[in-house]
C-alpha cells in the first residue's frame, strides 16, 4: 500500500502541475484513506501502474474547473473531447513525474478517461485508496492513488 511518506511525491507533483501549467498554484487539502470507491467528478483521467508497484492513479475534476484550466492554457476549444484530453494529460503528468522518486520501474500506462454521470471507477475489491483533495480557484478536484 502507498506509504504516507510516498504521498508527498503525488502532493508535490500536483502542486507543481498547477503552478507551472496553469500558472496558479493549487492548495492541497488533507489526504485521507478510503476503502470504498471515491466519488468522482465530471471527468476522470486514469493511469494504470505496473512494475515494482501496481495500482491506479486517477485525476478527477469538474467541467467548470477544466474549462478555466483550458483558458489559462490559452485554449479556446472546450469540447467534450478536449476535456477528456486534459484530464488524461493531468493524470499522465502527475504519474510520470512520480518516477522521479519511484524510479523507472514505476511503469505508467497511456491514459484512459471516464466521463458522464456517476461513472464507476475500476477498483479491486478490498483495495484502499488515498484521496488527495485539490482546491484551485474556488474549484475542487481530487487525485486518487491506489497502489500496492
Amino acid at each position, binding site marked *: 500500500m502507498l506509504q504516507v511518506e510516498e504521498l508527498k511525491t503525488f502532493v508535490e507533483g500536483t502542486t507543481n502541475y498547477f503552478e*507551472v*501549467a496553469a500558472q496558479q498554484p493549487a492548495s492541497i487539502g488533507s489526504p485521507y484513506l478510503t476503502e470504498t470507491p471515491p466519488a468522482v467528478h465530471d471527468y476522470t483521467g486514469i493511469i494504470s501502474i505496473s512494475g515494482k508497484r501496481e495500482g491506479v492513479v486517477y485525476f478527477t475534476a469538474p467541467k467548470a474547473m477544466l474549462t478555466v484550466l483550458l483558458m489559462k492554457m490559452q485554449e479556446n476549444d472546450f469540447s467534450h473531447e478536449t476535456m477528456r484530453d486534459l484530464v488524461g494529460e493531468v493524470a*499522465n*503528468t502527475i504519474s*510520470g*513525474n512520480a*518516477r522521479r522518486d519511484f524510479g*523507472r520501474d*514505476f511503469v505508467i500506462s497511456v491514459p484512459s478517461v471516464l466521463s458522464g454521470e456517476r461513472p464507476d471507477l475500476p477498483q479491486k475489491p478490498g483495495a484502499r485508496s488515498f484521496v488527495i483533495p485539490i482546491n484551485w480557484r474556488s474549484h475542487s478536484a481530487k487525485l486518487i492513488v491506489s497502489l500496492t
Partner: protein
Amino acid sequence: MNAASGKVMADKKSYKLMIVDDSNIMRRRIERSNQFEELELVGTAANGIEALEIFRKMDPDVVTMDLTMPQMDGIECISQLVALKPAIRILVISALADKATAVEAMEKGANGFLNKPFTDRQLNEAIAELMR
C-alpha cells in the same frame, strides 16, 4: 556543430518541425509556444506510427517527441527516426521524470529532454539549445 553528437545542422533558412504527442492539447501548446520563425511546422502526430508516416512524406529536421503514447512509444520512434535520418534533431518532451529514461532517450539518439509540465520559456530555451 554539436560536439557531443557530431551532428551538424546545415546552414538553412528554415527547418521543418514535426510535433509528436498523443495529447491534442499538448500538440497545440507546443505549436503556439514556438517562437522561432525559422521553424516551420510540417506535421503533427499522435503516436510513433503516425510520426513515421509524416516523416516519410515531409522529411522534418526537428522533432518534439512525447514518450508515453499508444501503438508505438517515443523511444521506439526515436530509434527508427535516427536510423532513417541521423542528422535529425529530437527534443523529448515527457512527463517521465526519472534519469534512466532521459539517459535511454539520449542513447537512442535524442538531443534534448524537457520534462512536463514546462513553461513557454523552458520550451523555447530547449528548442534553442537543440538548434545550436
